[in-house]
Every structure is written in C-alpha cells, then in structure tokens.
C-alpha cells in the first residue's frame, strides 16, 4: 500500500485522536525546554527518567492558569493527544497544569496568593462580621466522620438551638475542588430562599498535597463570591490555605470554627440570670421610691403657690422673732452690765482707802501684809493710800493690838 506522507500522517492522526484512552489524559512529569511564545502559546517538553512528550498549551488555556509553569517544575498536565501534521509529531495539547510535589506546590501557592492579593481577594475591608446568634449554620466538609463529628459535638455542647445544613463532599483528589466549590454555591442558592447565617468550610489536617484542593481557584472564587459569611477551618493550626485567607474568618481547627460560630449557652444563662437580678433590684427600688413619694404626698396635699406663700409668711415670722430676741437679749445684757459695775464698785479696794483704810504690801514681792508673820524687823514695805504709796521699814513687831 502506497500512501502520500500527508495521507499516512492523517491516518495516524485519526487513529490517535479517535482513541478514547488518549483523550482527557493526565500525565505526570517534569517540565523542560519551556518557552512562552510571543503569540501567547506555551511550548515545552514533559519528561521523566525514560521518556519525553512534546506539549503545547494554547493562550486560551494558559491564561487561566493560577501559577506560572517553568522548566524544572514537577507537574501533572491534563489534555488530549493530538498530531501536528506539518512536522509529523504527536503532542499533548494541554488544558490544565497542576503543580506536583512540594516545591512546585509551594511556588504555585505563593504565586496564587500574590495574584489574588492583587485582585483584592484578601482585602480586610471585605471581611464580614459573623452573626452573634446564628439560627442556621451551613457546613461543607468531608464525608468521613471525624471533622463533622467534632464540629457537631461542639455545637451540641455550646448552643444546640440551631439548624445545621450539611454538604458532604470529597476534600482531596481530583474533582474535589469542584465539589467543594459546588457545595458552597448550592448553600448560597438555598440561602436566598431559606437563609443560612454562616458557613463553615472545614477539613482535617493533611499534607500540602492533600490540602491543595483548598488552594484551587474554583474553591477560592466560590468562597470569595459567597453571600453567606464563611469561616474556614482547613487542616491544623499550622496549615494555611488560600481558602483561609479569602474567608471572612480563619479558624485554627474545625472544632475552633464551631466555637467561633456559636455562642456559649452557659455564659448566656449567666448573662440572663444577671439581667434578672438587675430587674428585681430596679423594680424594688422603683416601688420603694413610689412608696416614699406617696407618704410625702399624704403629709401635705398642698398647692405649690400656697406652699410658697406659707413659706414666705413663716420666713417673716422668723425674722420678727429674731429681731425681738436680739433686742431683748441686748437689753438684758445692758442691765447685767450696770449691775456688774455696781458690784465691782462696791468691791473696789479704792473705796476702802477712801474710808481711811490702807493696804500694806511687802516691798520685794508685793504680797499683801495681813499678819505679823508676813514680815520681819527690817522688812521694806509699801503703804498704799488713796493718792499714792509710802515706803517704810519695819522697826518692831508685836503680837496683839495695844491700847494706846
């Protein structure tokens, strides 16, 4: 059988491209000879230890990539096997590239983070407050029980007065991202007619590869677009995913997410009890005050003006009383004073002197001499008379008065 080159190539092309096992394949390998052509298309080789595969990723596909591929990166490429007739080569026409291995994942993570940050995905102003008392809580998490069990336990213990809406999805492996994103979208769809107050997106701990679905653009965008506030709890405390950054709040663990979302029943009970005590106090005081007011009212039901007039009169009366008292007291005082003067006058020693008596004082200490014991012979004395004093010296002392 004789073919032209073109005929044979076309035959091979159809054989390859019609083979369902060569459509939508995923191939793992390392990128080499990477070029990003000015046309926007990407050309590279995917290789492992044994083989090489030519790859092309057209502009339309590669602008959707969340990270920049490059030589040396380990990746998983998804696409179809096609034939480039002009050069007679088969190649993988790539629709999507996923980073593979820690290095590539880490790089992809940083790139995606930077890219989304620029688009405002992590803007703190976008973060919404969570409701204080959610009535309906959506939970998007894995089918396997542990995480869900933890969350439900915490809610049951703290605040069981809620309705839980559950969406269980795969959380790792291919297609998981689409399921997670889909669940978030469905929750939002439901919420439009049957409001959901807050959404928990949770997953247990795992390796960076296992948590990778939560860095997928699909999931990240679903979280970003969600009308329901989202608490993200992916992995353990040290695990970080883009989903955590975009969510309204990041919880370190799924249990912590539950604690953040619902209030504590015991605390609320105490709060209510406190209010009750204050109510009792306040009403007791109000009643007592009313009782007082009543008692006061009973004592005198008087018109204010009347009361003022009464006061005024009372004041006048007081003033008058005061005047009388003062005057009276003043007169009394005056009388007292003149009486006192008379007494004083009567008692004054001057009076006695006038009447011929005199006062003898001992010169050194001016003590009144009223006995012979107060002096000795030779003592100096002063004799006080009405108009002055006479100095003398004792010559002789005799007991008893002589009749001369």
């Amino acid at each position, binding site marked *: 059988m004789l073919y032209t080159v073109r005929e044979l190539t076309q035959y091979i092309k159809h054989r390859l491209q019609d083979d369902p096992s060569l459509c939508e394949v995923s191939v793992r390998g390392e990128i080499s000879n990477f070029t990003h052509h000015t046309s926007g298309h990407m050309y590279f080789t995917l290789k492992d230890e044994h083989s090489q595969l030519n790859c092309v990723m057209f502009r339309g596909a590669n602008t959707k990539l969340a990270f920049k591929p490059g030589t040396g990166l380990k990746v998983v490429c998804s696409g179809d096997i096609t034939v480039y007739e002009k050069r007679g080569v088969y190649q993988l026409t790539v629709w999507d590239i996923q980073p593979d291995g820690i290095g590539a994942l880490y790089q992809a993570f940083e790139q995606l983070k930077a890219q989304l940050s620029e688009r405002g995905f992590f803007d703190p102003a976008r973060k919404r407050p969570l409701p*204080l*008392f959610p*009535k309906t809580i*959506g939970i998007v998490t894995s089918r396997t029980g542990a995480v*869900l*069990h933890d969350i*439900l336990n915490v*809610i*049951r213990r703290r*605040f*069981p*007065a*809620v*309705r*839980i*809406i*559950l*969406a*269980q999805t795969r959380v790792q492996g291919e297609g998981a991202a689409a399921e997670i994103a889909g*669940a978030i979208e*469905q*929750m939002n*769809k*439901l919420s439009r007619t*049957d409001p959901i107050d807050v959404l928990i997106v949770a997953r247990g701990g795992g390796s960076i590869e296992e948590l990778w679905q939560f860095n997928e653009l699909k999931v990240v965008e679903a979280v970003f677009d969600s009308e329901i506030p989202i608490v993200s709890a992916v992995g353990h405390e040290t695990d970080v995913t883009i989903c955590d950054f975009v969510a309204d709040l990041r919880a370190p663990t799924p249990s912590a997410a539950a604690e953040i979302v619902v209030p504590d*029943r015991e605390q*609320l*009970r105490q*709060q*209510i009890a406190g*209010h*009750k005590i*204050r*109510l009792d106090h*306040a*009403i007791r*005081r*109000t*009643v007592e*005050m*009313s009782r007082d007011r009543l008692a006061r009212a009973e004592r005198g039901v008087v018109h204010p003006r009347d009361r003022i007039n009464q006061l005024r009169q009372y004041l006048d009366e007081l003033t008058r009383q005061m005047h009388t008292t003062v005057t009276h007291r003043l007169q009394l005082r005056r009388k007292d004073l003149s009486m006192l003067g008379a007494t004083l006058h009567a008692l004054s020693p001057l009076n006695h002197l006038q009447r011929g008596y005199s006062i003898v004082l001992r010169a050194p200490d001016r003590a009144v001499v009223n006995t012979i014991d107060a002096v000795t012979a030779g003592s100096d004395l002063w004799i006080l008379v009405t108009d002055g004093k006479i100095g003398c010296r004792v010559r002789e002392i005799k007991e008893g008065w002589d009749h001369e």
Partner: protein
Amino acid sequence: MSENEDITFEDALAELEDIVHELEESGLTLEDALLKFETGVKLSRLCNKELDDAEMRIEQLTEGEDGVRTERVEIE
C-alpha cells in the same frame, strides 16, 4: 414585648437588656415600671427556655431538578 411568640433569642435578649436599662434609669412611672418588669421577667424566661429545650436539627443539602433542597438526617 411584641405579642409574637416567634421572637428570636437574639431579639429577646436585646429587649431584655433594654428593659433592664430603662428600669435602672428609673424615670418610669410605677405603672410603666411594673409593666416593663413583667415583660422583662417573661423575656428572661423565654430566653432560658430557648436555651434549655433546644434540640439541634440536622439537614442534608441535596440538589434536584427543582433546585436545591434539604432533607432531615440523623447524625450522632
């Protein structure tokens, strides 16, 4: 308090707080104060009841042809 028995826990608690403040400010007449007090006691009872007899209800999200729905599930 509104006559509505469907008042949410959140609203009931907020109203209770308001009443406590109003009563403590003591600008009310005795009659009003007693009315408020009665409402406050009712509200605190309501709040406690809400906390006490609350049973968690779990529903599963399902998507059918007629859109998104939920159905009751039992999970321990």
